[in-house]
């Protein structure tokens, strides 16, 4: 429509194009100045800009509603409830070990991915890559150290977490199933650490994994040195140890298998169990306590 009008103007006043152009330039000064002022005014409160409101879905004034929304409308925080038992934040109750374990898993994933950029799981290169990391890669030594110590720390944190959960009786109804998920996660943590042990391809890892997997020879029925193994035609070339190592000795295939289990297989399985673990913490009613003490006389005995 506007263009049509312009066309009409052009026909009426022969020099219309130039005239209109001049008018636009004149008005530009006042119009744009107004817009710019508006813009600056708008920026004084960045929380009202479209970009901000598109990212954060609610206001941040310090009101109870916003405190709740800050947790509930955030994908990373929404594992938490909006409110918890006032004593549950006491360090002396939870020791923070579950959270620390998860944090260490994140640290390990982060440093692990960085390490993967410098590491080849082959007999020729694996050990040299470690030397390269230690001596040439910027902060490579720090990276490897951090991965190693975080792994050790995670094993300790997992065990202490289990101890705390036991001592507070947190595995009791209705959390029995989540305790089982936790036991599986404990085993997966140990397996993650164990598979990583071989990867530097040094004497320490090699012999630790040799000692460890030699036990698999003795698996009853499935190992060639185990009870009833030979009777079931188990040999070093078809038993469960062969499956673990991809061969009858700890060699190139074992290195590759350890690498894939360590970097892909077990982390994915562990992540799935972690999802269930955290989900169930919430579904089973949040963390178990600190709960009010119950007296012996108050226990209602179920009918037998």
């Amino acid at each position, binding site marked *: 429509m506007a263009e049509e009008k312009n066309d009409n103007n052009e026909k009426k006043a022969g020099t219309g194009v130039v005239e209109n152009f001049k008018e636009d330039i004149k008005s530009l000064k006042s119009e744009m100045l107004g817009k710019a002022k508006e813009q600056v005014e708008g920026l004084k409160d960045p929380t009202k800009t479209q970009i901000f409101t598109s990212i954060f879905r609610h206001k941040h004034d310090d009101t109870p509603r916003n405190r709740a929304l800050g947790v509930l409308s955030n994908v990373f*925080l929404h594992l938490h409830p909006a409110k918890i038992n006032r004593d549950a934040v006491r360090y002396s109750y939870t020791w923070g070990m579950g959270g620390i374990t998860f944090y260490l898993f994140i640290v390990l994933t982060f440093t692990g991915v960085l390490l993967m950029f410098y590491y080849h799981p082959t007999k020729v290169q694996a050990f040299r890559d470690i030397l390269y990391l230690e001596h040439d890669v910027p902060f490579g030594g720090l990276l490897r*150290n951090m991965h190693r110590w975080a792994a050790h720390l995670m094993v300790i944190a997992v065990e202490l977490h289990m101890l705390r959960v036991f001592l507070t*009786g947190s595995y009791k109804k209705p959390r029995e199933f989540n305790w089982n998920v936790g036991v599986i996660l404990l085993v997966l943590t140990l397996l993650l650490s164990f598979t990583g042990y071989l990867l530097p391809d040094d004497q*320490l890892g090699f012999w*630790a994994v040799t000692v460890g997997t030699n036990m698999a020879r003795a*698996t*009853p029925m499935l190992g060639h040195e185990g009870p009833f193994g030979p009777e079931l035609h188990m040999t070093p070339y078809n038993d469960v140890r062969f499956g673990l190592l991809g061969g009858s000795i*700890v060699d190139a295939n074992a290195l590759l298998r350890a690498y894939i289990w360590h970097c892909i297989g077990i982390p994915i399985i562990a992540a799935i169990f972690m999802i269930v673990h955290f989900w169930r913490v919430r579904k089973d009613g949040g963390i178990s306590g600190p709960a009010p003490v119950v007296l012996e006389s108050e*226990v209602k005995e179920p009918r037998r």
Partner: protein
Amino acid sequence: MDWSQLWEIASAPDNVPIVAIIPLLAFYLWLAWRQASANDRLIEQLAADPALAKTHHRKTWPFKPGWQKEIHVWPFLLRVEFLAAIIVTIILMVWSITLNAPLEEPANPNLTMNPAKAPWYFLGLQEMLVYFDPWIAGVVMPTLIIIGLMVIPYIDPNPLGAGYYTLKQRRFAIATFCFGFVVLWVSMIVIGTFIRGPGWMWFWPGQTWDHNKLIYEVNIDLHELLNRFLPSALQITSTWAKGIFGALVVGGYFAVGGLVVHHLFKRFHLKDYQRMSFLQYNTLMMLLLLMISLPIKMALRLVLQIKYVWVTPWFNV
């Protein structure tokens, strides 16, 4: 006293976690015990005073009427989590800067490490290899540990002590778990790390790891020990006799041990006994006896130098 040997073991980078876990475990056990005894005192007080029990908020921490029972996660929990993450990061940073991860020579299948040790968290199982054949120490025991842990919630019928530290309400459960975790699991790891030297021989802390040390020990089987005292007509020599003898000993352990444990359990934990179903009770007994058999076999091996109690052509226990 060879201090440098002791230092060499304690300062090995991969042994730092074990050196760390001992004070950590001691601290957290103390922390738990402190809260448990405070709760136990409260429970005693409330049990003696029913009027107070009706009005008390039932925690050892202060609470006044009008205080909110629940608080916002943002910021009260998140700040704790954030702080924990920062502290862990600082610890990791300092640890990683000051101590290098171990790296030995390239893997060499022709050069055996002596001692060749598993990663520290599996040293308990490796130590078990001294007392049991690999199929028990390496396969059956880990499986039983996992199964044992998993059935805990289903065989513990005690409804008390859910969500707070207590000792008096859960004596048996806590004693059993601490025996399994602290005494068996952790102390086995400590033995495997600090005591076991070349050839997996026993070296006291401070003793030099002598690679040429020889110990002349003749390990015998239980029936051989018995044969020394039996008249020649009753000697246990045939495969059948050995197998039956071993089966009787192992079966006898479970029968007699089971009766003893049953007697004690019924006497001291009658309520729990009454609450348990047939399956629950038998699972508990079975796992308990298997766990107790561990230190018994260790004692047999260390004191009487007995290798096997049950010898068969297929497996030895």
